[in-house]
């Protein structure tokens, strides 16, 4: 399965975004430059046309084009390009020397309103041209001279058109150069960005490789310490690495608990087997009387029965955990079962001189639950309290039916427990040191079994220390 690459995404995404930005920017730069250059040319053309228009002077006897003088005047630098005059009255045309044999197209707009146009010169090159319809300049001397001959000079009778053109090839060349420069700059920018992304991402992601190596080393060790998080790991990933470490710690703890369970299971199963073996070997080690032999065989049988109980409990826990045991709900009278279990425990209670305080309400409503599982849970909880209470101590059993749920509590003395490790009491083979019977009949599976059974009934068992030396187990079941 191919996984997405951060680096590839960065480079692709950044490339696209930067490319679009650069394209848009370059477009506007190009257009602005083009417009500036065009405006400059047009401005020059307009200025030229204006100057040339003023060079057409109407005199007493003729129309004189004084553009040569204009060309030699201080303002001649402002006359650019080629030009051509048309006398609209006579049809005569005059053109700049640079035009040679070529002709400019005749175009114009309204009087004194210049018109700009793209044209093609006779040499085939593109040009920008301005056409201006205007009237010639008439000075007072010319008017006076004409008046002397009885003529009245009206400039409007001598409309003139000047078309001034400037080749735009250089403009095109400059724009092409600009386009090329912008393109190269854009490509260079993209390449620089990609190179820096690649370098920075490689540098930033290198600690991940180091973290991977640390993880591999960690996986090879037994009881490894926490995985070392490289100092150079990006801050965006430290949270993930920390969470990973936490998850690994949980896995290590689970592994440690599994290992401990296996060790405990080995001990709890092998020890009774050793007991049976030693008992029978000792019976046969020397000649013994029949009564003695009978007692030893009975002892071995007792151990066998105890092992059977342990194995049955283990199998039941496995079935409950694996969801292989089904539960059925029928109305159950909790107080009846409580009484029965307590009565069965009387011999052990009396043997250990325990004082029992019962807090059972007068009427405890029936609950809908699996009777077998309910009895198993109650038996294990009560049995656990009795077996872990020192001789002459006091145990309390309470039922709380005030809520919508059935609540049963056991409170008994305890020692050497801390609040942080209470949950471990529900793990298999956790047998307290004060267990009154260490002959293997109770291998530390009762609470584990009770918890699984409670869960199957839709309830739960909680445990907490109500003081330094008293512990409370609370069974909660739905009604």
């Amino acid at each position, binding site marked *: 399965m191919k996984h997405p690459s951060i680096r590839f995404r960065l480079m692709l995404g950044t490339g696209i975004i930067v490319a679009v930005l650069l394209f848009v920017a370059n477009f506007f730069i190009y257009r602005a430059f083009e417009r500036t250059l065009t405006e400059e040319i047009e401005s020059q053309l307009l200025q030229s046309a204006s100057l040339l228009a003023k060079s057409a002077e109407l005199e007493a006897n003729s129309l004189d084009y004084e553009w040569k003088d204009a060309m030699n005047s201080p303002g001649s630098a402002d006359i650019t390009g080629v030009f051509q005059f048309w006398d609209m009255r006579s049809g005569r045309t005059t053109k700049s020397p640079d035009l040679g044999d070529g002709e400019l197209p005749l175009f114009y707009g309204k009087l004194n309103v210049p018109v700009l146009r793209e044209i093609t010169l006779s040499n085939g090159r593109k040009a920008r041209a301005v056409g201006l319809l205007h009237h010639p300049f008439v000075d007072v001397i010319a008017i006076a001279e004409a008046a002397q001959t009885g003529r009245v000079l009206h400039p409007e009778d001598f409309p003139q058109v000047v078309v001034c053109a400037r080749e735009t090839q250089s403009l095109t060349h400059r724009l092409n150069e600009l386009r090329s420069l912008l393109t190269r700059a854009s490509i260079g920018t993209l390449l620089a960005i990609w190179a820096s992304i690649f370098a920075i991402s490689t540098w930033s992601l290198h600690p991940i490789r180091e973290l991977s190596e640390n993880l591999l080393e960690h996986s090879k060790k037994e009881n490894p310490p926490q995985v070392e998080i490289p100092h150079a790991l990006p801050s965006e990933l430290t949270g993930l690495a920390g969470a990973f470490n936490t998850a690994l710690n949980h896995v290590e703890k689970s592994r440690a608990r599994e290992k401990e369970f296996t060790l405990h299971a*080995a001990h709890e*199963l092998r020890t009774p087997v*050793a007991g049976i*073996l*030693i008992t029978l*070997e000792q019976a046969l*080690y020397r000649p013994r009387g029949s009564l003695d032999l009978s007692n030893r065989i009975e002892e071995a049988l007792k151990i066998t029965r105890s092992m059977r109980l342990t194995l049955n409990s283990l199998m039941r826990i496995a079935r409950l955990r694996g969801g292989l045991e089904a539960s059925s709900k029928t109305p159950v009278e909790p107080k009846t079962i409580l009484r029965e279990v307590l009565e069965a425990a009387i011999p052990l209670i009396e043997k250990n001189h325990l004082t029992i305080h019962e807090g059972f309400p007068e009427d405890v409503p029936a609950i809908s639950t699996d009777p077998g599982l309910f009895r198993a849970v109650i038996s294990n909880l009560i049995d656990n309290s009795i077996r872990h209470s020192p001789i002459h101590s006091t145990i309390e059993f309470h039922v709380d039916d005030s809520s919508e749920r059935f609540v049963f509590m056991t409170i008994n003395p305890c020692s050497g427990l801390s609040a942080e490790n209470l949950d471990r009491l529900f793990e298999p083979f956790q047998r307290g*040191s004060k*267990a009154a019977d260490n*002959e293997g009949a109770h291998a530390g599976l009762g609470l584990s079994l009770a918890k699984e059974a409670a869960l199957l009934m839709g309830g739960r068992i909680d445990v907490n220390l109500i003081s330094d030396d008293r512990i409370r187990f609370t069974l909660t079941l739905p009604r």
Partner: protein
Amino acid sequence: MRCLLVEDYTPLRKNIEECLVEEGYVVDSSASGDEGLWFAKNHPYDVIILDIMLPEVDGLTILRKIRELQDHTPVMIVSARDGVTQRVEGLNAGADDYLVKPFALIELVARLHALVRRRYDRGTPVLNVGDLTIDCALKKVVRGGKEISLTRREYHLLEYLAFRAGQPVSRTDIWEHVYEDQAGGSSNAVDVYIGYLRKKLNEGGKPDLIQTRRGHGYLLTESPT
């Protein structure tokens, strides 16, 4: 020989104790780690049998504490933990042997004997002092080619002296390592049984191999004075 047995599983503890007593050991047994540690610190033993999974204080902790006190008493661990790591851990903690449950009783006894022999630097179960031969495996005593019949108490007393042959052994030592009932008895009983032994061993005018060293106790030696 005196043995401490620390095992919380009652059937195992009772049967092993019974077996060892029948083998002639004086056995102190305990079902909990803290009591077992108290026994180990306050009494001299020739060998200790130690379970690991004990209530209160576990076996490895007891072992480490014993070794911290420079006590070199041989220790045999008996445990259901059969993994290599656990066995190595036990041996590295100072154990002299590691026996995995379930085990054959006869093997336990044989290993125990081996540990005791090692403690007294004896390579074989046959002890020779001059013309006296004691076969610890067969519980047979022969002097000058003639088998000597001893009571159980006489044999164990002689065996203890033989393991420590060449060293003076105080009455207290003999009392603690050979007599089960140390409460209510007296070391005068030691003198009485030494007398019985001398009579049987020296029968026929043989030289007395048991010497009395005033203030130090008794010495079994092949060089009688």
